[in-house]
């Protein structure tokens, strides 16, 4: 079984997508609340972004997760809805402006593999929460994984110094487990690195691969 405390990969310099669209909508009325639990970044809001942190909510709904922002206790930039929510399959919730540091990681935590062990991770990162109870019976949906990967690709295209994609559990391993053992980290990594937003045109995908084309003997007039 995979260990969420080891979930991390770094984005290569080559292969950065040029521009990625994102199906997102602001969580209803969240703009009234995120000001209580976000900060002005101490790094440049574009060039200073180095990491994306993947979380799971340990809860069953977007409403429950968004309630912590309304209470001013914690925050994150995106919320990926669960399978039984009407937004699932359509869009993700935007819950805090990217230019602000959301409060998704405790200030004291850090890891030497992430931005040379700097603390105050919130200031150089973006946080994605995926709605999932983290119970063994609660699988992540394919759409949740694809969408989380798409958010990371969107960030990769937008932030030139973005390098680290890391689990919350790796940054704070003593008790945290998110996004949990059910999160298919290797599949997610492939989706981030390869992407699925530019599918090969159908006409090309059904063509016979070059390796399977038989050589043809030429008996024409132009052989020599």
């Amino acid at each position, binding site marked *: 079984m995979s260990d969420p405390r080891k979930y991390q990969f770094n984005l290569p310099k080559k292969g950065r997508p040029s521009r990625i669209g994102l199906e997102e909508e602001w969580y209803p009325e969240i703009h009234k609340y995120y000001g209580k639990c976000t900060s002005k970044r101490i790094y440049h809001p574009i060039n200073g972004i180095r990491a994306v942190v993947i979380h799971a909510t340990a809860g069953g709904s977007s409403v429950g*997760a968004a309630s912590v922002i309304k209470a001013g206790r914690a925050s994150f930039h995106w919320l990926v809805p669960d399978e039984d929510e009407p937004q699932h399959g359509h869009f993700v919730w935007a819950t805090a402006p990217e230019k602000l540091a959301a*409060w998704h990681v405790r*200030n004291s935590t850090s890891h030497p593999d992430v931005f040379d062990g700097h603390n105050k991770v919130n200031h150089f990162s973006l946080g994605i929460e995926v709605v999932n109870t983290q119970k063994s019976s609660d699988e992540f949906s394919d759409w949740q994984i694809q969408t989380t990967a798409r958010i990371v690709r969107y960030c990769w295209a937008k932030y030139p110094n973005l390098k680290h994609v890391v689990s919350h559990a790796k940054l704070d391993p003593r008790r945290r487990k998110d996004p949990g053992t059910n999160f298919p980290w290797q599949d997610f990594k492939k989706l981030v690195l390869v992407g699925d937003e530019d599918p090969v045109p159908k006409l090309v995908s059904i063509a016979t691969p070059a390796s399977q084309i038989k050589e043809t003997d030429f008996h024409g007039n132009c052989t020599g």
Partner: protein
Amino acid sequence: MAIAQDKKYIFINLTRGLIQTIFLIGLFSCHGNNQPGNDHPGTINFVDAKFVDCVFYAGSTQFFFQHKNGEEFMVSQSHEPDALKIINADSLIEPNPVEGPPGPNTEILGKLIRIHYDKQGKPIAFSQLE
């Protein structure tokens, strides 16, 4: 007339005392039963344990406790709007965290807490014992 009233007064007090004694016997018979949820319906159950940590997620807060024998267990408070709220749960959470999800309330960390359970074994309240 006055004697009759005195007798009535004594009877009421005796009845009250009897009820209180029965209640206390019931309560203490549950004491020491450290497995919540296995008590009989109608009884109140509780566990006394040391508060050792609190992990705040977007969807729930997990409170960690330690039995006398060192064994740890976790009590979870859901953040769903319709979830049953554990009384005094907030007092175990860091009141003013700096730019991050809150951790444990350091003033209560390491203290003995009584965890109260309902008939179904669900945690309903925390109370500080020291």
